[in-house]
């Protein structure tokens, strides 16, 4: 069973690496240079997938938290915690790569428009989620409180997504499913979709490592109990 798991893990890492190579090729050599912004537009190919992974991870936190509240099984709490940690990592990347793109294009690093502000709020919600988990010592209370925050916090995700559709914002309008004026050239769209697939693979690779760490922690707890009982 372990050998099968290791083989699957190795295959996932290899697939992620190959996909990343293909993505980099497409971003820098296949996708055409954007006419107005130039090469800086290529940040978009990793910025948008980072946002996708953050949203996906927070959606999983929402689902696993709901299941935990319904069943009180520690396994769902562990999954939610792992997804939240990776979600925060990618949300941080969104908040860093966005301003790096904004500075040469808008002339400012940051502006308090709806999309940017709501994304910062999203990041703060899940940082609070991780802090709550870190500072609460009682495992059951920690899991319940975190699950409630994981469910409520997810409300901000659709707000971030729809903010550029509902309000006039400085953030660029949607390039996919955004109406008649939206859309990308075929090579740009293909590059974006490949990058989204690659980042999804990267998410599962990181999740697998994070869960392995958790299973080792659980093993330590079980062994410590046995040592105490034996002593």
């Amino acid at each position, binding site marked *: 069973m372990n050998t099968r798991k290791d083989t699957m893990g190795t295959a996932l890492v290899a697939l992620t690496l190959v996909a990343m190579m293909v993505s980099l090729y497409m971003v820098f050599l296949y996708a055409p240079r954007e006419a107005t912004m130039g090469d800086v537009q290529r940040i978009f190919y990793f910025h948008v997938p980072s946002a996708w992974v953050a949203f996906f991870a927070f959606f999983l936190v929402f689902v696993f938290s709901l299941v935990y509240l319904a069943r009180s099984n520690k396994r769902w709490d562990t999954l939610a915690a792992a997804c939240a940690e990776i979600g925060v990592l990618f949300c941080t990347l969104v908040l860093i790569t966005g301003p790096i793109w904004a500075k040469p294009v808008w002339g400012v690093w940051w502006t308090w428009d709806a999309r940017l502000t709501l994304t910062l709020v999203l990041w703060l919600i899940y940082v609070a989620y991780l802090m709550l988990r870190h500072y609460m010592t009682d495992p059951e209370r920690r899991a319940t409180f975190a699950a409630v925050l994981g469910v409520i916090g997810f409300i901000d995700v659709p707000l971030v997504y729809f903010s550029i559709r509902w309000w006039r914002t400085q953030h660029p309008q949607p390039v996919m499913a955004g109406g008649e004026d939206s859309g990308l050239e075929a090579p740009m769209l293909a590059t974006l979709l490949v990058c989204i697939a690659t980042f999804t693979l990267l998410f599962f690779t*990181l999740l697998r*490592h994070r869960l392995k760490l958790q299973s080792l*922690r659980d093993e330590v707890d079980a062994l410590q109990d046995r040592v105490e009982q034996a002593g």
Partner: protein
Amino acid sequence: MKWLFAAYAVIWLAVFIYLFDLGKKQKAIAREVEGLKAKLAGERK
């Protein structure tokens, strides 16, 4: 081009730091597991 480099460098750095940190924690906990197993085996003897 410097902005493009900065953005991609930040992404790679963050992912590698996260993976490195996970690996470091895994190694430390694996050592702890071995220590506890050895302690248990010693107590049985």
